[in-house]
């Protein structure tokens, strides 16, 4: 009798964890959306908007660069997503059973861990007319004694911005696809297809891709939404006259003229609508491609152009990886440079004085970054483990709908709810505090942690837990003494992912922190607007090193802890 009570109590508590988890990120998003939607139609009594009106929309539409801004948003968003998806799939087709794919994780984890803004900052120097690439070919090859007057960064069409997004998104999608491949009987299907005479690439595209696509649809949608609404990368690499819609909204939200809140809210609402429409359109195009693709597959061409396309894509992916590598290396060199002018390939001299002077500046934001990341990750971990435990004990798996819910923070544009969420934080009196920033980070950290941990957790052989229970262990003891040790590696990797997500947050930190909570990312983006490149280099480097260190720790820790238990390593 008493034994059943003991086991029943924690289970009852656990029952509330999923609701708490969903609430933790649905509340700010929901309140935020309402808080943005109302001012978009003129209602925000605090600053004199008492009546519903369409004036904010008229103001938005009459902005001189409005049409170009929307066009830019669409072309960059859709173009980047299409390219990223195509490159990622073709790369996987090319790399199937080739050595690079087996080590793909090791290659792209550092890129994934590096915050968007740090990569963008490095990329800006790499591709500028006076940048590293131009320096490498000047003047001996290009004949340039002065940098050419070319718009390679901040170009009006947003090509530099697209490149900056691709560098991050292609590796992300590749990792998602590789993860999803475990759910598909790849080896068997490939063997059959190859036996029927299909080339490796053609077989992969015709047989594996259609099975994998539904598994990675949500990550692709997240990429679409992100490319349409990105702010930090657009500030660094994108055009500014006019900027993409998301940047325009942020620019107006933070303008001294308080009346601009209204058109800013309208712009954010429009962006939300655009994201919704584009995702709908994407869905429709998927159907069309399925219809056409079926006929193409049925035609049964064994080789075709698949190999050519896949090889080209693999080359592009390798180039993107190289760009990312040199972007960070360039910033690292800058942080130790004294003078480094065009067309010198390397600095005129090196010195440690930049670092010596920056150490005190870096300490504060580094501490804040660390504390925020650790807190958000720890809270998210408790919630996620709670959810997964509850799921396991209640023998009920999260539904498809729950998965969409998890992806919500990644699908809704940040500008569309962060301003409204800020109003909520002000009402609660916690705006500008570390707690507010941790909460804002949690909204984005939670889904990533859940998505990384759910599969390994669910894949754990239930017989371990059953064996422990039959030996008299309580569920709590099973969790602590059996499940968590076995799952230590995936748990730590999931935490590293979550920590990296937290480190990279720009807009949520800016809004929830009310500009007063400075992290490495907010500092780096602020500095990127024009400060001394040696200083930017130091910030970008430290910013990139933080998540990288977390990954290393996640890999090294199990080896250390389980040095006497080979199977656990």
């Amino acid at each position: 009798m008493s034994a059943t009570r003991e086991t029943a109590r924690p289970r009852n508590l656990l029952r509330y964890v999923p609701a708490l988890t969903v609430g933790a990120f649905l509340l700010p998003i929901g309140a935020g959306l309402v808080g943005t939607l109302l001012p978009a139609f003129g209602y925000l009594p605090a600053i004199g908007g008492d009546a519903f009106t369409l004036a904010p929309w008229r103001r938005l539409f009459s902005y001189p660069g409005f049409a170009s801004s929307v066009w830019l948003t669409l072309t960059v968003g859709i173009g980047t997503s299409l390219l990223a998806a195509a490159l990622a799939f073709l790369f996987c087709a090319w790399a199937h059973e080739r050595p690079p794919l087996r080590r793909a994780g090791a290659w792209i984890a550092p890129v994934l861990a590096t915050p968007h803004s740090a990569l963008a900052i490095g990329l800006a120097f790499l591709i500028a007319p006076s940048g590293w690439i131009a320096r490498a070919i000047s003047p001996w090859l290009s004949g340039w004694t002065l940098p050419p007057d070319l718009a390679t960064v901040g170009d009006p069409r947003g090509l530099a911005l697209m490149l900056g997004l691709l560098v991050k998104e292609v590796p992300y999608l590749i990792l998602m696809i590789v993860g999803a491949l475990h759910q598909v009987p790849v080896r068997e299907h490939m063997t059959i297809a190859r036996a029927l005479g299909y080339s490796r690439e053609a077989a992969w595209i015709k047989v594996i891709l259609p099975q994998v696509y539904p598994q990675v649809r949500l990550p692709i949608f997240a990429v679409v939404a992100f490319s349409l609404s990105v702010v930090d990368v657009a500030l660094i690499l994108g055009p500014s006259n006019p900027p993409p819609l998301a940047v325009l909204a942020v620019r107006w939200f933070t303008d001294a003229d308080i009346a601009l809140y209204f058109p800013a809210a309208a712009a954010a609402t429009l962006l939300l609508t655009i994201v919704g429409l584009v995702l709908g359109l994407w869905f429709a195009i998927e159907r069309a491609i399925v219809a056409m693709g079926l006929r193409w597959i049925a035609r049964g061409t064994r080789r075709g152009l698949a190999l050519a396309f896949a090889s080209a894509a693999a080359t592009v992916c390798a180039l993107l990886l190289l760009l990312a590598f040199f972007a960070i290396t360039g910033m690292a060199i800058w942080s130790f440079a004294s003078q480094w002018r065009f067309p010198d390939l390397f600095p005129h001299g090196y010195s440690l004085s930049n670092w010596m002077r920056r150490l005190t500046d870096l300490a504060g934001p580094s501490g804040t970054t660390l504390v925020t990341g650790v807190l958000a990750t720890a809270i998210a971990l408790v919630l996620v483990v709670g959810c997964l435990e509850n799921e396991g004990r209640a023998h009920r798996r999260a539904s498809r709908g729950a998965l969409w819910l998890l992806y919500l923070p990644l699908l809704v544009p940040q500008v569309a709810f962060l301003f409204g969420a800020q109003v909520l934080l002000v009402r609660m009196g916690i705006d500008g505090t570390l707690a507010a920033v941790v909460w804002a980070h949690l909204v984005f950290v939670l889904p990533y942690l859940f998505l990384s941990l759910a599969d390994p957790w669910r894949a754990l052989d239930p017989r371990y837990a059953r064996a422990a229970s039959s030996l008299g262990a309580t569920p709590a003891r099973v969790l602590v003494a059996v499940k968590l040790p076995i799952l230590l590696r995936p748990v730590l990797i999931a935490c590293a992912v979550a920590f990296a997500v937290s480190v990279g947050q720009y807009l949520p930190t800016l809004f929830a922190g009310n500009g007063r909570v400075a992290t490495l990312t907010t500092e780096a983006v602020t500095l990127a607007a024009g400060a001394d490149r040696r200083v930017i280099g130091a910030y970008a480097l430290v910013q990139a090193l933080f998540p990288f260190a977390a990954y290393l720790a996640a890999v090294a820790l199990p080896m250390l802890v389980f040095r006497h238990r080979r199977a656990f390593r």
Partner: protein
Amino acid sequence: MFRRLLGVACAAFIAVSAHAQEVKWSEVLAKARGQTVNFNAWAGDEKTNAFIQWAGEEVGKRYGVKINHVKLKDTAEAVTRVVAEKAAGRNSGGTVDLIWINGPNFLALKQQGLLHGPFTQALPNYARVDTTGIRSNVVDFTIPVDGLESPWRRAQIVFVYDSKRVSDAPRSVPEMLAWAKRHPGRLTHPSVRNFLGSTFLKQALYELAPDPSVLQMPATDENFAMVTAPLWGWYDQLRPTLWRKGEQFPDNGPAQRQLMNDGEIDMMISFSPAEAAVAINSELLPDSVRTVVFSRGTIGNTSFVAIPYNAANKEGAMVVADFLLDPATQAHAQDIRQMGNFSVLDFSKLTPAERKRFDDLPKSAALPTNADLGTTLLEPHPSWMTRITAEWEKRYTK
């Protein structure tokens, strides 16, 4: 007789008020001890950031006041925050204690009654401020300061060029157009949304407007088109000759300086007469850069610090404002190894020892003398800047 009486009365009054002030200041110092001042300041310039950090260490040592530099991308962010706090009903315990401010942002806060003060008369070091010779110390973009903000650094437009590549630096707005036509792609200006970019246009307007005196009054619907017509005529010709054909602009001054350091441009506008000297010193520009000032004078203004009405740490903020006016602080700020900005103090009000601090500062070939700087033109009314920015966006944003 009457005069003498008046004189005595005045002296007595001054003595009394000075005493009252002294008492009050010691109270301010006592209350300030232990406070942390949230100093909201534009953080795009490393030298200024380092200076604020140094100032924080100094006021910490001397007065037990800490400075938390809230780093802004745009001063408007701080204005927004104060306005938002007012909207949310937070009339005390506000999160902004001190703002580096001037011009339109000051006007916005002053008009809405969101500033603490007048407080400058209570600052002991304010007595040394030049309030007659440097008009911009008391009239901020034509708006009377009324003791609501305390000056701390001065700015005046100069042009920086690379003497290795430029031998024919222009000395007027029309000459600049001719120069740009001879050297296409080698000149730019910061984005017009940035104060330095709009100042570039204001400087041109000063020289091109039929009667520049109207700029001291608010722009009206009637006179704006007429007064600015020559400006747009000039700019329409200039723009295609600019860097990136005038379709792209650096975000702000430091970004523009980076272009100069990268060799993408040969000449740039600056709001700090010492920028070239400071930048050479910190290896941010080649040694060959020099400074030139337009012969008919250039726009100059003063940077201030202001305290929002709801600031939580008003006393600490006042201590910082006073510290910024200390002659030793001002001399440190004017050092080209630091910020290099020109002082707001009246040197005739300083002791010889205090003056010597300024005389002993390092010199540089890139540093203009006060004589080189020539006439300082007063900032136009903020409405001109607002309208010029809007008009520019309308004309050149496609």
